[in-house]
């Protein structure tokens, strides 16, 4: 009932502003793209290694800044973003090696990642300063396209963020469900003891997962640093946004993260367009409502319940 009423309201408001609804849709999808890049890595680590990595936002920021420096050196966005992702993958691996000391103990593990997040943010400040900055989009993706029936345009790079997220999602799916490495990873998550009996080094598998998540965060940093900007505090903003998505979607579920990213992205874009002042309240209210009704998120399984 409530859903129908809400849907009706959204349609009604969208008709009112006519030509802007396409923009809301596109904005929602762009935001969803960035959120998914972040959230998929986070949820991957949680689902497979069972670690809540609060340093994921720090990886985003460091990935973005590294790409920024590299772009200034090489002038090539793709090289910069790629190497930035490699760097954060490495950093993420180091983080795992520290975490391993308390692995399997939820709260201390989470707290360690929180400490790491604080250190990362401060190191970003030390190395890149507090002046906000951004990357230039690659030449092919510069400029905007016309939106029909409006004076507004839509930047090409934003559209490519959506494509990038979809590509990343596809790659993840192929990797996890269509490769040997993927089945090893999934098996390790299900039953690490059994996998190690089979002669596979579980730690190596977990390391790989951390590296993948780090690379995704680094890539998100380059993308976000291009269409938004890089500055102190961005790590927390983006971490919060991706946490919302991960939780709403159901921890550990990549499909859930994708759906939740779209839902949250659209709700956010809609709220910002129609209720600017209370837009943040609407976004967080949506999350609270989802979790109050479905404590495990939209696609969450019961496996982590107290039950």
């Amino acid at each position, binding site marked *: 009932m409530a859903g129908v009423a809400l849907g009706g309201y959204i349609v009604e408001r969208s008709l009112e502003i006519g030509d*802007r609804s396409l*923009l*809301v849709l596109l*904005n929602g999808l*762009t*935001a969803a793209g960035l959120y998914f890049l972040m959230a998929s890595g986070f949820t991957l680590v949680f689902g497979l290694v069972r670690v809540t990595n609060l340093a994921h936002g720090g990886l985003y920021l460091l990935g973005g800044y590294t790409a920024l420096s590299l772009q200034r050196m090489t002038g090539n966005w793709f090289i910069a973003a790629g190497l930035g992702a490699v760097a954060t993958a490495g950093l993420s691996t180091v983080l795992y090696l520290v975490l391993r000391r308390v692995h399997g103990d939820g709260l201390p593990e989470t707290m360690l990642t929180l400490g790491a997040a604080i250190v990362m943010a401060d190191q970003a*400040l030390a190395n890149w*300063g*507090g*002046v*906000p*900055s*951004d990357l230039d989009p690659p030449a092919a993706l510069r400029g*905007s396209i016309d939106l029909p029936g409006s*004076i*507004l*345009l*839509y*930047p090409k790079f*934003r559209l490519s963020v959506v494509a990038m997220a979809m590509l990343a999602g596809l790659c993840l799916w192929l990797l996890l469900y269509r490769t040997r490495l993927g089945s090893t990873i999934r098996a390790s998550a299900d039953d690490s003891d059994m996998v190690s009996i089979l002669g596979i080094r579980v730690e190596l598998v977990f390391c790989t997962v951390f590296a993948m998540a780090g690379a995704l965060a680094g890539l998100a940093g380059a993308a*976000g640093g291009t269409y*938004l*900007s890089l*500055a*102190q*505090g*961005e790590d927390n*903003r983006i971490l919060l946004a991706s946490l919302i998505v991960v939780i709403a979607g159901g921890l550990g579920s990549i499909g859930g993260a994708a759906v939740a990213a779209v839902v949250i992205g659209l709700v*956010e*874009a809609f709220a*910002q*367009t129609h209720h*600017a*002042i209370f*837009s*943040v309240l609407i976004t967080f209210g949506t999350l609270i409502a989802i979790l109050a009704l479905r404590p495990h998120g939209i696609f969450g399984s019961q496996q982590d319940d107290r039950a």
Partner: protein
Amino acid sequence: MRNLGAGRSWRILAALAAVVVLAASCGDDDSTADTPSAGTEPVEAPAGATDTDGGTDADDSMEEPSAGDAEASSDDSSDGSASDEGGSSDDAGTAEAIEPITIGAISTLDGPFAALGDFSMHGVKLALLEYGGTLDGDATRDTVTGAEVAGVPIELVIEGSDATPDVAVEATRRMVEQDGANIVIGPLSGDEGLALKDYIREHPDVTLVNGTSASQDLTLRDPSPNVFRFGGDGAMWTFGVGTYAYEELGHRRIATVAEDYSYPYDQVGAVLTEFCALGGTVAERIWVPLGTQDYSSFVAQIPDDVDAVFFAMGGTDAINFVKQYDEFTGQAIPLIAGPTAVDQSVLNELGSRAEGLVSSGPVVDDSGLAEFDTFAEYLDDVFPGQTPNTFNVYYYVATKSALQALEEVGGDLSDGSAAFQAALAQQSWTTPIGPVVLDDNRQAVVDMYLRRVTDGAQATIETLPLVNATLGFDRDAYIAQGSFSRDNPSCG
């Protein structure tokens, strides 16, 4: 289970008490041992001690230009200090009895505005270097030692906040009560300023000289006698834009996009007060919650049929907004900027998108003032690559004003700093951004500039001389209209 629980609590409590005591004494020891400004206990004959410190530091320091240039520039900008400076090392023996004066500087050194904190501290340090100080090091928290005014050694204490009022008050309390700061320079943001006003009011012998806090009510309503502002507030910084937009640019209907808190309210309020008084109308006031990264949905709310869009935001938000406005509209509707949105501190990052933006503000790069050129050169000498912006200039002006007043009273802070505060209220000098005098509320009356971004710098359109806190309106009427808010002024 009571037994288990109560078991060791006595030990914890005892330990707690012990640690409190230990930490307190440690804290004192550490600050004396670590900071060269050994200011907390006068018994330690600090003058001699700091002078020796200062000497060695100067020798070790990499900043050769600082000493020489400090002398040079202080020669032309302040007459009295040269002789003191010459005498400073000789005075070491006799200065033992003189209690040093501690200046505390506070700005945002952590969090999203950390870069602005760096700029602010540059300004503070430059002023102290003019008085014979030497830099302790390159980092923001490294202080300046060896400065003297009228034979009294000056010590600098630096504290940072994260732009929240609570943290700013704690940092200031640390400087005032722990480090014995007599004068506080800062803070950076509006709401911090209001919180510090309340704190400093309870310490009448301490003087707050504002940095860049642009809240109107720091001085406009319910002023505190020991709070001084040698610069404009948010509304003053936006003076003249509304009139210029109406009369020169011919705009009749505008929209505004601004961050949703008091400082942008002041800017939007100032623009609309002028613009609406002339007969202009505002089509839409869009308030963006702090913490928003993506402005695209807000840009989409701008009506198609307005003549111009006024935007007021700072730092990252300005960069995001201008970039996204450009991408989403191709700047189909002209922008008019708030002062901080196109401040020199972000101009470089805004790049070519900022080209041609009109704004009002306290600092232009082509004012032609000799003081400005000297300052710019001096800044670049000491902190290579830095150019003047609101933050370094304002903190410099604040510190320099305080030092000049100190000089006039011979470093005398007795009687609750009465003489010093009186002298400070009388300061009237030509700063790098023009002449300054204070009104009865100890608020500056200063020049503002209408300016246009040209080749990545702020070029003067027109100098707006001696702007006051009520923007030239009748004082009572201006105050009576109340603080600017989301929908004040109403504008039709």
